[in-house]
C-alpha cells in the first residue's frame, strides 16, 4: 500500500451497482500526485462512473475511493477537494462569465475577500486566454470559449484533482488538437493531478502520463501510453488502442507460431499461450517489399486499395488464406516513385517480435 502523500487518487476494490446491473467492479487504481491519467474505453465501459465516484456524484457500492489518502465514502460532492469539467460544460446560464468562474471561490469558508475573488477569477480567465471576457453572457460565447470558461471555473479553485469528462468531445478537430496542447501545458504549469475520461484513444495517448484502459466495467491495463501501445495486455487493448491487424494462428511448441495460411514464425512473444491463438500486428510494423516473393519472414499479397493520408500512405493488402491486412507506410522512408499501385503483388515483411500473441 502506497502512502497518502504520493497518490492523489486511489480506488480500492471499488464496485458500483445499479440494482442488478453492475456498472464497474474490482477497480483498483492509483493516480500519483501531479500525474495526468486518462481513463480510456468504449462507451458504457464504466469510465464515467469511476470519474463520478471521485467527484462524489456516485457512491461506490463496495470498496473505497481515497482522495489524498482520505477515504471519501459518504462525503458529499461539495465537500471534496476536486473540481470537474463537465462534458457539456454545465455553465450557469443566468450568470456572466466572471460570476461563473468565481462561483466556487464564493462558496469557500472561511470567506475570501471579494477583491481577492475577482483578482483570482481574472487570473484564471487570463490563464485560459479569456481575459476581458468576464462580463460576457454565457450564450454569447462560442463552444470553444465555453469550454475554456468551464476549465477556468474549475482550476480557479486550485483543486487537488481536476476531473475532465470527455471535455473535448464537442469541439471540432482543429480546436480539439489546440485544446489538447493547452490542457497539457496547463497541467504542467499548475501541477494539479488530472483525471481525464475519453473514448478517443488518440486523445488519451497524446495527453496523458498514464492510460487506464477499461472494458465492460473492469480495468484491463494501466500504464504509460507507449507501453499500452507497444505491449497491449490483451487483444481488446491491441484492438482499441490504435489500429491493428488480427491474424488467426496456432502456437506450436514453446516459441513457434503457425499462421492460418501455414506460414511459420519463430517468436518469443507467445505469452505462455498454447493452441489456438489470435495474433495482433500493428499496420506500421509491416514493410511492403516490391519483389513479391515471400521470403523467410514475409507474407505474399496483392494491394487492393491505397489511401493517401498526406504524411503517410495506408494500403489494404489481400493475403492468401489470411484476409485483408492494413499496412501503413511513412512517406519519409518511401520516395514518391515508390508508391505501390493497387493490383501490384507485394511482400509483407515484419520483425516477428512485433507479433503480439493472445489466446483465441
Amino acid at each position, binding site marked *: 500500500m502506497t502512502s497518502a502523500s504520493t497518490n492523489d487518487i486511489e480506488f480500492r476494490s471499488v464496485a458500483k451497482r445499479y440494482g442488478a446491473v453492475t456498472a464497474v467492479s474490482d477497480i483498483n487504481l492509483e493516480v500519483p500526485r501531479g500525474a495526468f491519467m486518462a481513463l480510456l474505453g468504449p462507451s458504457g465501459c464504466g469510465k464515467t462512473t469511476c470519474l463520478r465516484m471521485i467527484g462524489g456524484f456516485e457512491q461506490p457500492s463496495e470498496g473505497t475511493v481515497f482522495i489524498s489518502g482520505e477515504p471519501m465514502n459518504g462525503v458529499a460532492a*461539495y465537500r471534496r477537494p476536486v473540481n470537474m469539467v463537465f462534458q457539456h460544460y*454545465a455553465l*450557469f446560464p443566468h450568470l456572466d462569465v466572471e460570476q461563473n468562474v468565481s462561483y466556487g471561490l464564493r462558496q469557500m469558508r472561511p470567506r475570501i475577500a471579494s477583491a481577492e475573488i475577482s483578482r483570482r477569477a481574472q487570473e484564471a480567465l487570463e490563464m485560459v486566454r479569456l481575459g476581458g471576457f468576464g462580463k460576457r453572457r454565457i450564450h454569447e460565447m462560442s463552444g470553444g470559449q465555453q469550454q475554456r470558461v468551464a476549465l477556468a471555473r474549475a482550476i480557479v479553485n486550485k483543486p487537488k484533482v481536476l476531473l475532465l469528462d470527455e471535455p473535448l468531445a464537442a469541439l471540432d478537430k482543429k480546436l480539439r488538437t489546440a485544446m489538447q496542447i493547452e490542457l497539457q501545458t496547463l497541467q504542467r504549469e499548475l501541477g494539479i493531478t488530472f483525471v481525464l475520461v475519453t473514448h478517443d484513444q488518440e486523445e488519451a495517448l497524446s495527453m496523458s502520463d498514464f492510460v487506464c484502459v477499461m472494458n465492460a466495467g473492469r480495468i484491463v491495463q494501466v500504464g504509460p501510453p507507449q507501453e499500452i501501445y507497444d505491449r497491449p495486455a490483451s487483444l481488446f487493448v491491441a484492438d482499441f488502442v490504435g489500429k491493428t491487424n488480427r491474424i488467426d494462428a496456432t502456437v506450436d511448441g514453446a516459441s513457434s507460431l503457425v499462421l492460418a495460411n501455414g506460414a511459420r514464425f519463430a517468436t518469443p512473444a507467445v505469452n505462455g499461450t498454447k493452441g489456438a491463438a489470435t495474433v495482433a500486428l500493428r499496420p506500421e510494423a509491416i514493410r511492403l517489399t516490391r519483389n513479391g516473393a515471400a521470403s523467410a519472414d514475409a507474407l505474399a499479397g496483392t494491394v487492393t486499395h491505397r489511401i493517401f493520408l498526406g504524411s503517410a500512405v495506408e494500403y489494404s493488402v489481400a493475403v492468401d488464406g489470411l484476409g485483408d491486412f492494413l499496412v501503413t507506410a511513412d512517406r519519409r522512408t518511401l520516395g514518391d516513385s515508390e508508391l505501390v499501385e493497387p493490383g501490384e503483388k507485394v511482400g509483407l515483411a515484419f520483425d516477428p517480435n512485433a507479433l503480439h500473441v493472445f489466446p483465441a
Partner: protein
Amino acid sequence: MRAFISSVYLFLYAPIALVVLFSFNAGRNASEFTGFSTAWYGKALGNTFLVSALQNSLLIAFTSATLAAIFGTMAALGMERLAPRNRAIFDALFAAAIVVPGVVIGIATLVALVAVFSFINPALATIWPGDQPPQLGLGYGSIIAAHGLFSMALVTMIVKARIASLGRDIVEASSDLYATPLTTFRLIVLPQILPSILAGFLLAFTFSFDDFIIAFFVAGSKTTLPIYVFASIRRGVTPEINAIATLVLVASLLLILTARILMREKKTKSGE
C-alpha cells in the same frame, strides 16, 4: 371554407365584442347603442356589493394562487427525485386533476368538507375550554382550499416542465463547486425556475378569479365576483354588468399574456 372559419370566429368573439361595446353605452337599453359613456364603470365601482365581491375574489385569488405556487413548486421539485415509475404515476394524477370537470371538483370538495366539518366541529366542541367553540364552515377557507388544490396541479405541471429542461448537470456543477444543496437551490435552481413559478402563480390567480362553478359549490354565504355577476344577471343584463365583464376580461388577458411571456422567454434561453 373561409366563410366557415370566419363564422366560427364571429360566433366566438362577436358576443364578447358586444359586451365590451355596450359597457360604454350611454343608454340603459342593451339592444341599441345611444352614445359613448364611461358612466357604467363609475356606477359599477360605486356599488358596495360589487366592490365587496371584487375584494373577496381578489383575496381568494391571491391567497390560493400563492399557496398553489408554493406547494406546486415543492411538489415539482420533489417529483424530480422520484423513481421514474412513481413519477409517472404522480404525473398522471396531476394531469387528471386538471381535466376533471369543475362540477365534479365542486361537488366532491363540498361533500368532503361537509363530512370533515361534521366530524371536527363536535370534537372541537368537547375539547374547547370556553363556552363558544369555533365552528368550522364554508367560506373563504373552503374556496381557497378548493382553488388552491386545483391550481397547485397547474403550477406543478408548469414548473416541472421547466425543471426537466434544466438538466441535472448544472445542479451537479454547483455541488462540485462547494455549494451546499440549499445554496444550490438558492443560487442556481430558483433563479432558473422563478419565471415559471410566477407564470404558474398568474395562471392560478386568473383561474381562481374567473372561476364560478367550484366557488359556487363551496362558497357558503360568501360572494365572489362571478357569483355576484351570476346572481345579478337574473335581474336582467345591465350595462353595469357589461362594464364588470369588460374589466375582468382585460385583467385576465393581461395576466395570461404576462404568464405566457414569462414561460416563453425561458424556453428560448434554455434552447441556446
